[in-house]
């Protein structure tokens, strides 16, 4: 035997799960929704996606280079943020909207708070809300096939009928990634099977939302209204891809259940009583702010705690 040996503290083996592998899986799981969005809305959707991802990755690279920090674009978290941001934008936005959004998401929401793992709010959603407030007109311009139509959720709010099958398959207008519930669910199944997410947050989110709509929605148990609410807007995309963002959700298992319930109720309040039809983004970033409190209240009980010595 020649050569020196490594010495370190136990354990000496590691799982092969890494941050970059997790992020790549999320990208993979977002592909069905992205591909459908491009197919549905055409080339501008593709441009929006590419610009948004590039903007996020470049912002992260340039900032870290300037600050002499480790370059972390290799963990693909900036790419995930860029993709999620694009999927939350209408396909009609001009190219500079995703540029501004990407810079805001990575620079203001993520890097200024310390980079990956340190942000208290989902960067993509933070940027989306920033864009909604700043460029309200362009951000709600859901023109599709040359017709500036209302999203099904707005129609639902107005009391107009909606086609549930079209909503499920994606034959409607809305943000790039949220139109096809089916495509989002395929991605969700990928994440669930790969063990990246579990059903704690999405399950409690969707159930508590349904319960809220059932009681306060004003339409009782009308299945068309309930399913329309479930399939409409960014609820599915939000519940499976953004409410489950590790960094901005409670680390405790019970906390995740509480968090999911809070999101469901908040989304219900915003959708039923709010002015705009969309409530998911606001509900999630509001929920993000409650995470430290939820964690504090739901710390697990240490094994054997409270046991008495004989």
């Amino acid at each position, binding site marked *: 035997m020649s050569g020196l*040996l490594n010495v370190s503290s136990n354990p000496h083996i*590691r799982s092969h799960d890494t941050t970059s592998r997790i992020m790549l899986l999320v990208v993979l799981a977002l592909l069905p929704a992205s591909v459908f969005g491009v197919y549905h809305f055409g080339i501008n959707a593709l441009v929006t996606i590419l610009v948004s991802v590039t903007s996020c990755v470049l912002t992260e690279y340039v900032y870290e280079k300037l600050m002499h920090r480790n370059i972390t674009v290799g963990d693909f978290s900036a790419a995930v943020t860029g993709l999620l941001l694009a999927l939350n934008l209408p396909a009609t936005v001009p190219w500079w909207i995703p540029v501004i959004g990407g810079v805001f998401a990575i620079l203001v929401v993520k890097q200024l708070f310390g980079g990956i793992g340190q942000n208290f709010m989902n960067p993509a959603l933070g940027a989306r809300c920033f864009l909604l407030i700043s460029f309200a007109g362009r951000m709600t311009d859901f023109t599709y096939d040359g017709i500036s139509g209302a999203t099904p959720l707005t129609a639902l709010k107005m009391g107009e009928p909606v086609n549930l099958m079209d909503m499920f398959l994606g034959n409607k207008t809305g943000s790039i990634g949220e139109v096809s519930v089916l495509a989002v669910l395929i991605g969700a199944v990928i994440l669930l099977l790969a063990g990246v997410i579990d059903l704690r947050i999405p399950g409690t989110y969707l159930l508590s939302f349904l319960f809220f709509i059932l009681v306060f929605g004003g339409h009782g148990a009308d299945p068309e209204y309930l399913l329309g609410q479930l399939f409409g807007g960014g609820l599915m995309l939000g519940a499976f891809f953004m409410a489950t963002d590790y960094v901005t959700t409670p*680390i405790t298992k019970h906390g995740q259940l509480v968090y999911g319930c809070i999101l469901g109720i908040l989304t219900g309040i915003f959708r039923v009583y709010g002015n705009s039809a969309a409530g998911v983004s606001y509900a999630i970033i509001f929920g993000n702010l409650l995470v430290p409190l939820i964690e504090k209240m739901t710390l697990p009980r240490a094994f054997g705690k409270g046991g008495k010595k004989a």
Partner: protein
Amino acid sequence: MARLTFKGGIHPYDGKELSKDKPIRDILPQGDVVYPLSQHIGAPAVPAVKKGDYIWAGQVIAEAGGFVSASIHASVSGVVKGIERRLTVTGTMCDAIIVENDGKYTEIARPERKPLENLTGGEILQYIREAGVVGMGGAGFPTHVKLSPKEPEKIDYVLVNCAECEPYLTADYRRMMEEPDKIVAGLKAVLKIFPQAKGILAVEDNKKDAAAKLREAAAGETGIEVKVLKTKYPQGAERQLIFAVTGRKINSSMLPADVGCVVDNCDTVYAIYQAVYNGRPLTERIVTVTGDAIAEPQNFRVRTGTNYAELADAAGGFKSQPEKIVSGGPMMGFALYSLDVPCTKTSSALLCLTKDEAAAYEPSNCINCGRCVSVCPGRVVPSRLADFAERHDEEAFVKADGMECCECGCCSYICPAKRPLTQYIKSMRKIVLANRKKK
């Protein structure tokens, strides 16, 4: 029926196929034999021999240095070369008795033993103490102390830990396959001390053949049962084992006896058998020599004091350059920087890996994924404890139940950001314990 287990835990690659079918082979020490005076938890043993003395195999060469201590016996015959500071597996230096092996293995006369039926609990305890038996699962707690709880009549379970949940280790497995009757006989001796107790042999379900052997050996014995547990690391951790089998929970400040349990490792019970039935002290154990760097992985019956380098040679040496060598299992073992250390009563394995996974990944920021929380058998929040440890916030660390950590390593193993969580927590625990001692 749901399989017996606990909440949390991990399923690492277990590597047991490398050595599980290799029968136990005897190897004899070639060079000098080295006996560190601290091979157990508690006070170091006190030398009973001096330089130049001739000693027989089985002779006491160091006496227990207190109640919580254990005596040490020679595993070879020969001449005492001296008492020197030597490197031990934990990386610390320790006084050790060095013996020049004469290669004759002349044994000292062993005491006569009465049949078990005629022995009292007190006599059995005395035999175990005289034989220097300590917990051979890794911790090395003197067994006679464990078997002397304040209220022996309140013990209702004697658990034999045959889980062997550490990856790569097959020493206990070979013992169960080859000498199950002796493990059962050892358990019977312990049950003599606790007549009210039920004996349970707990085996993981990846060793069903071993469980069958034990069952066969225990057939007809009333009050002894084999229980099969779910295969999961750390199923053999004391607290998790007690919970899986009995549903009772203990925390870090309690002893198994507080919930009416006594837990002994499988090989410890074998050592008890040798002490009580044959008057044979603890001078040998089974060591698994394995890993992808070893030419022919083996299970050796090794005399204590044998140099680790000889074990690697006996297993055909290295087929490729090892990057990391571990004494014990990959989850809780100690990394060695030199093979020039002696095998002790608690050496379960010599693991030689061509790749050091701990060094292969660069640690990055915590992404709050919660995997450490899911796997932690102590039900604490490892990522937060590691933060407190990093900031040296002793108060917050203790308040967040940092002292409940059993250092099993699951959190470091699972962390996708590859943070050395266990290391942070382990260091902080040491500091807290040291500060408590000062007060």
